[in-house]
């Protein structure tokens, strides 16, 4: 049971996950392709929305929607950059985990240097989105 099967990489071995990999969603493809920097621009637009929401509306609903789009786009970027061979589900989840790490790291740097008020959080989001976009671009170029 334990050692009989051939040691294939995850993406090749798991039947149902491989199917998902092959049928990589159109949405994910369009985000990764980042044609005319559209995905990056949407990501920056969500940062603007978060900033405006913080300063004017303070609505959790707007915050939730904008943050979800931000997580999705940048999570897909990082997932594509580091876990390209994994199945869609894992690529997205691991990409989001890396995104959280990056947000935490840049946020930590801001705390240690100055503080983390609304403007600094916006800068942190901007810096992380830029890094994700650049990493995605780098991987795309390699291909």
């Amino acid at each position, binding site marked *: 049971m*334990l050692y009989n099967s051939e040691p294939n990489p995850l993406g090749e071995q798991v039947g*149902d996950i491989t199917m998902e990999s092959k049928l990589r969603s159109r949405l994910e493809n369009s985000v990764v392709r980042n044609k005319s920097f559209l995905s990056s621009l949407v990501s920056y637009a969500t940062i603007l929305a978060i900033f405006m929401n913080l300063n004017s509306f303070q609505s959790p609903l707007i915050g939730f929607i904008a943050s979800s789009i931000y997580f999705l786009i940048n999570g897909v970027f990082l997932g594509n950059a580091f876990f390209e061979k994994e199945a869609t589900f894992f690529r997205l989840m691991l990409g989001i985990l890396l995104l959280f790490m990056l947000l*935490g790291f840049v946020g930590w740097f801001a*705390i240690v240097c100055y503080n*983390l008020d609304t403007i600094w959080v916006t800068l942190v989001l901007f810096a992380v989105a830029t890094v994700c976009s650049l990493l995605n671009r780098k991987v795309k170029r390699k291909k």
Partner: protein
Amino acid sequence: MTDSQQGYNELLLTSEIFYLLLVALSFYLLFLSRTGEARTVWEVLHPVFIPALFVATSLLLTIVLSSEKVAYKLLFVIVHSVLVHSLFSIIFPAGDLSGQQMVLGRTRIVYNNAILHGWPPWTLGNVFSEIFTRFAGINFQAALSVVFARMFSLDLLPVHLFLVPVLWGVFTPIVAYFMTYSFTRNNKAAVFASLLISAFPYSTYFGAISVPNSLGFIFFFYAFYFMLKYLDSNGFQTTFLMLAFSFFSLMSHYLTGVMSLSFLLLTLAFKAYKSEKKTSPSTTRFSLMISFVVSVSLLPLSFIYLRFFRPTTQTVFTLDKLPFTESVGFFLPHQLFIQFLQNLAKSVGLFFLGELMYASDLKTILLFIIGPALALLYMIYLLFKLKRNPSIKFQVHLFFLFAAFLMMLIDYGILTLFMDDLPLQPERLWVFRDFIGVPFVALAIHGVFSSVNAFLKSRSPPTVSFATLKVLSKNNFLRILSLLLALNVLIPVVLGGWITLSLEVSYPRVAPLQTTWYELEAVKFIEENTTEKYVVIGDIWTIFAGEVIVGVNNPRAYYFLELNKTGYDLFVNMKRDPSPQWMLQAMNYTDTTVAYFIVTKPRLGADEFNSVVSRVLQNKQLTVVSVPGVSPEKLYVFSYRKG
């Protein structure tokens, strides 16, 4: 698709819908159990919650053991995992008392922009302390919580409370799946492992509290998985991710950072062993042994040298904790021998169980040790199997995991028996041990499941269904029926029971009164109705409530640190002699203009509470602040204004 397949798919879909309904019901029951005055979750938990969770878990196990897609199975496991880790956060309005509130207190001052020009706001003694404080996990967690709170435009409290339960609930099952799959290539066992991690009580507890150590565990798990992957791979990405996750585990907490470092060393040694064992077997074995010893030593030594970074830590090696050093008291040889045996048993018990050895409840002990014991036994079984057939795959992985598990046992023993004044409870090592052990428990149980399944297939007609059972002889009928029951009902029910019972020992049964609704209301009322800078004198429980709402050491709304001697002395003096002089002293000390004094009946006890309150009221120098909705039978707030 055949009729039987279609029937099976429909049954599976029904089970999944029923499972999701049960999880929704469980969440609803948790919200119904929410209370502002309780000691433990068990005092107020809805009586239907545990039965509902048991049925949901058993149902989830049948889904996990079915042929459903892996991603869906994992999604169901994630939902279950978030549920079992959310008890504190949903039931108590301020989460679990103390640890996570202390973290929240420090995060609050970042969130409220109370500290500018970098953290820490105070000067530190030396460069090592400076490094330690800047890299302390609390900063990393504070950054995550504050960024999320601002992104979602929510208050910090709910974000902080659910940060770890959600991150743990989502990412720990995934990494347990990955780790198991990486050396077994067995999907079912891997998904099974992702669920079984909830059967380890200490892991569940750490997944339920938002403290930096819990975040560190999550990053460590991923670092460990990439270490395992690194044994097979020379790719840049695997190396980078292994190092990145190790770094973030260090950023989160020094315990997980040191453990990552220890395991990195072990991984490098195993990698070298793997590539060089054929050319120079004896040298590689020797270097592997040396690396193992160094890896084991790193954690105890790091606690000793932690004093350079954190002067309050004074950990030392000691022999005083060994039961052998206890005085014998009588001198007859056979009595000495009996005493020796008792001490030996006690030492062995302490080595493996630690404080758990003194637990009075056998069920608790069993639930804590059954998983690790099963993992160790199955590891040993696999190693014996390996000896008979050394050509099988993944043997280095297996040796590595065994060495890592052994390392945890030895480190735990060293910390428990040979070290004193530790900066943390050695039981935290059980989380590492459990994570390493969970794939083996999953494999062992899956092995039993597969054997029953194979036996069933070999002894039955090609398609066994309840319809075909009719044509079988009576003996075969009974045998196959019992196996079918064992496979589809008994195994999920027993395992579901195990996981549910583990939850019962994961959350403490004894605890002080949690932060109450009236303490929170008092702190909120003061904050909302005071325009000047103020200081609050109160017991440690009031400070915890203050940490939840305004933070600690906040220059505008000052609450002393939990163990601050000045704050403690001021409170004791106020209780003894409730006069304005102590409040003036507090205001001068904190550069504030208003001082508040809070006393709470359930904390002080009725006698002391009544005595303090009556003296303050007789004194007439302090103003009584009435908090709307809070009865004077519960809590009193007094104030005094400078000038």
